[in-house]
């Protein structure tokens, strides 16, 4: 979530001495069920073994308790949130409580009737995913036949006058057609287009060699995006997120651990980010057992990486540590084997060469590259297989 302030500087990071701020952004991952099988999905690789979806009462409690603490942005996501019959009820409750409500969806199941019901329930915005601007690649990457449907859905959303943001995950296989994706967003009347360069977690990590673009591809894509920004400034806002593997300093992940974001996964486990369940150590708390207030302010999990006492060198004494807080804990775990380590995107990390190796490989053309693993589509069968192989992210 973007947070900016007018005139006054907002220090959105707790210094560890004072109480953390409220969980401003609540993400409700209502289910891991999904009709798509995207190769870059960041739902955990073991999603198939996450059962016992939180029921309606449970979600209503989550909404009420979070709002009471000061949550103000609410996202309904998944998997595919439209697979929940109670979605309209949850949106209505969130709206009644004063949340700004966002639906993050593939569009599958978003009929005219449901769109109308959601609007009446008070839904503020829909983020519609596309996998590409061409039918072939869209359907290939999600392993579905959904392209035509999504176009229809975009029109439906527009007809009901609900603000719409288009999200397209960008990677090696579609980055060279970025102008087509932008043109499509303009045609569909989106408020904003998110060109989200893949970040390498979960399924995207499994498929990383197929997904990380070359530097040349990235430079070209950024140039084109900027040209469109200049030309269509009044019509379309474009967000372009660069893959952090190409940076030498890591991102301030989630704006800080337990600082702004609160994610509730389908079984009620509360997490500081989508993928934190991969981390070793004590389990994260469940809303079935604890109040949101306890979870956010007092649970071990949410306090684990607050402040800077947990940092090791080089982060601990780094003069830049407040900029990025050492980067992403999940990425530190995945690449350096240690969630307390510096995120290896940082060139001060002793493991930075791992990122450099991945980037070096990405400079080879697709035909020259020998990929060790075939593309793996997100589905229950692959989930079970990867879990058996000990893949934990």
């Amino acid at each position, binding site marked *: 979530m973007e*947070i900016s302030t007018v005139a006054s500087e907002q220090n959105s990071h707790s210094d560890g001495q004072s109480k953390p701020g409220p969980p401003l952004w609540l993400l409700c991952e209502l289910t891991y069920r999904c009709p798509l099988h995207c190769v870059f999905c960041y739902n955990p690789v073991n999603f198939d073994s996450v059962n016992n979806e939180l029921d309606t009462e449970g979600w209503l409690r989550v909404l009420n308790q979070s709002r009471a603490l000061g949550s103000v942005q609410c996202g309904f996501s998944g998997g595919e949130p439209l697979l929940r019959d109670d979605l309209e009820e949850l949106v209505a409750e969130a709206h009644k409580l004063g949340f700004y409500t966002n639906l993050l969806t593939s569009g599958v199941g978003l009929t005219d009737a449901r769109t109308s019901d959601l609007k009446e329930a008070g839904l503020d*915005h829909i983020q519609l995913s596309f996998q590409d601007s061409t039918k072939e690649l869209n359907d290939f990457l999600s392993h579905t036949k959904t392209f035509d449907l999504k176009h229809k859905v975009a029109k439906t959303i527009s007809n009901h006058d609900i603000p719409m943001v288009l999200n397209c995950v960008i990677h090696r296989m579609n980055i060279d057609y970025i102008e087509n994706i932008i043109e499509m967003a303009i045609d569909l009347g989106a408020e904003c287009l998110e060109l989200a360069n893949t970040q390498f977690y979960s399924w995207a990590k499994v498929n990383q060699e197929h997904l990380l673009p070359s530097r040349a591809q990235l430079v070209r894509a950024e140039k084109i995006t900027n040209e469109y920004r200049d030309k269509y400034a009044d019509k379309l806002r474009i967000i372009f997120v660069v893959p952090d593997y190409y940076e030498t300093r890591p991102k301030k992940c989630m704006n800080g651990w337990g600082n702004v974001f609160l994610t509730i996964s389908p079984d009620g486990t509360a997490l500081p980010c989508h993928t934190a369940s991969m981390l070793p150590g004590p389990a994260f708390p469940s809303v079935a057992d604890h109040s949101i207030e306890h979870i956010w302010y007092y649970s071990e999990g949410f306090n684990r990486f607050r402040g800077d006492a947990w940092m090791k060198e080089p982060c601990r004494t780094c003069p830049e540590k407040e900029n990025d807080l050492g980067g992403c804990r999940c990425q530190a775990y995945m690449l350096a084997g240690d969630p307390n380590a510096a995120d290896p995107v940082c060139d001060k990390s002793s493991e930075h060469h791992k990122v450099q190796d991945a980037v070096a490989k990405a400079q080879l053309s697709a035909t020259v590259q020998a990929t060790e693993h075939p593309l793996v589509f997100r589905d229950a069968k692959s989930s079970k297989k990867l879990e058996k192989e000990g893949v934990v992210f």
Partner: protein
Amino acid sequence: MSTDSVASIDTQHVAAIAKPYRLQFEQAQDSWVLLYPEGMVKLNGPAGEILKRMDGLKNIDSVVDELETAFEQKGLRKDVVSFIEIALQKRWITLSSPK
């Protein structure tokens, strides 16, 4: 979509918060905020006081008068207009001619 140029703000025009922004006061942050898809602008005191009066009914002159009364100050017009220029540029508000 037309953007009013900096030099030509007609203070007889009526200002309103533009879609998809929503203005509300947040107790937990003790501040007015502008909410939009997956984002938030936290507003400082003066910004909040100006925007909260942009109800789509009052013209800018009235907003200035109200502020001068509420804060027992004169000569706020210039600051309010400067702020409106920023808010227009950021597309937080729209201006329309009075009915």
